């Protein structure tokens, strides 16, 4: 089982997701873990990053003490600008999102269903609900991908037949990068593309809440040294 093999770290998951981003792609990275994807752009490729609060073409965080708090991303973290950046207001920003002008959006997940349904904004009626731009982003990119641990901290599958938590969007996710595998969502089913070399299909299936299909070859998931 998983305990015996080394699953990918968050950084390694982010690295894997970054490999699928083409040079010049327009990309929105959800706040938190997905922001890490920006660090792993392959040599020679440069994506243009969009943030909901009205900046296109931003770069990494400034040095501590150099922050300008009028220049932040959707996670309210200080950012910098790259040449060719642009500012715009919130309606124009979400016109980019909702209008399908982003090439890729990469989001976190509580659960992803084999239908492409995503639950990533609410763990139920307790506490203060907060949605931000998540429900817009899932309808906002040509390709909506998720990066996530394969199972919850309690070992429950996050890839499921049907989401049990409140939905963020219906039928929106097309690829999931997990700590164990890369899974596409096609025609309402999970299609396994890559998995850790040391992990058997049956072990992976056992940690997955819906059937994994293998219509084509399954590659070994690269474990980068970061």
């Amino acid at each position, binding site marked *: 089982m998983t305990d015996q093999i080394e699953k990918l770290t968050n950084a390694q998951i982010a690295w894997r997701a970054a490999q699928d981003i083409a040079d010049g792609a327009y990309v929105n990275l959800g706040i938190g873990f997905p922001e890490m994807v920006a660090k792993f752009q392959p040599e020679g490729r440069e994506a243009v990053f969009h*943030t*909901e*609060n*009205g*900046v296109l073409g931003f770069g990494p965080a400034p040095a501590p003490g150099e922050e*300008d*708090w*009028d*220049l*932040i991303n959707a996670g*309210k973290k200080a950012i910098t600008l790259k040449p060719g950046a642009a*500012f*715009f*207001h*919130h*309606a124009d*920003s*979400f016109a980019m*999102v*909702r209008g399908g002008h982003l090439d890729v959006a990469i989001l976190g997940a509580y659960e992803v269903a084999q239908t492409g*349904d995503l639950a990533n904004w609410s763990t139920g009626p307790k*506490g*203060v*609900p*907060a*949605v*931000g*731009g*998540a*429900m*817009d982003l899932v*309808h*906002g990119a040509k390709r909506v991908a998720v990066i996530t641990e394969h199972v919850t901290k309690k070992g429950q599958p996050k890839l499921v037949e049907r989401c049990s938590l*409140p*939905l*963020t*969007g*219906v039928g929106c996710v097309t690829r999931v990068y997990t700590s164990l595998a890369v899974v596409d969502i096609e025609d309402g089913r999970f299609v396994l593309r890559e998995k850790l070399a040391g992990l058997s299909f049956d072990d992976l299936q056992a940690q997955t809440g819906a059937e994994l299909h293998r219509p084509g070859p399954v590659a070994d998931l690269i474990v980068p040294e970061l």
Partner: protein
Amino acid sequence: MDKTLPSLAEAVAGIEDGATVMIGGFGGSGAPIELIHALIDRYLATGHPKGLTIVNNNAGNGHVGIAAMIEQGMVAKMICSFPRSADPRVFTELYLSGKIELELVPQGTLAERIRAGGAGIPAFYTPTGYGTELANGKPVEEFDGKHYIRERWLKADVALIKAEIGDTMGNLTYRMAARNFAPLMATAAERTIVQVTKLVAPGGIDPEAVITPGLFVDGLVEVATPAQEEALNRAEAHHP
């Protein structure tokens, strides 16, 4: 035509009990701290305005700005997308004890509803939220084989926003990501009040560079060295 107002106190004088007030800003960027604090000061001195509905992306952070309004008890309802922040305690406690109402709106839908309010579009269809609990009760329609929900415009009695340069006719520019909701809110409120960091004469802004044309603005007050909400919170400031 000169829309400048003599003081922050005068700028917030006309806001009535129960008003819907849109407040610019996303986190600390663009938050019109001085206008908000002037409004709090008025409330503390007079007991008005109270029972406000506040429209903002967030629901305050720490003990300044919108959080301070909530803390002082001026706010009956928040319309926002993300009522969490580094220190959301003020809102959280009132919300969990049922003392403040929350209308949670996806961020892009919030922006588009405000734009629609300003643009005379009473309703529009969006894919955002379809199939989720935030679509409950909203009409669903299919266009070209895809499902969308219908959302209504959002308007306000007053908008309080922060701009970078303003001329006396009300033309405005913004500073970096502090632009966010402000240009939209300026269009959707009956009365738009602006704090500008620099006030100039008409002609002082290149017509190509104007982001909010003056016709959307009703009053301006210059605040030459505005506080930044994020900086205030890092210093653990309180208002009052």
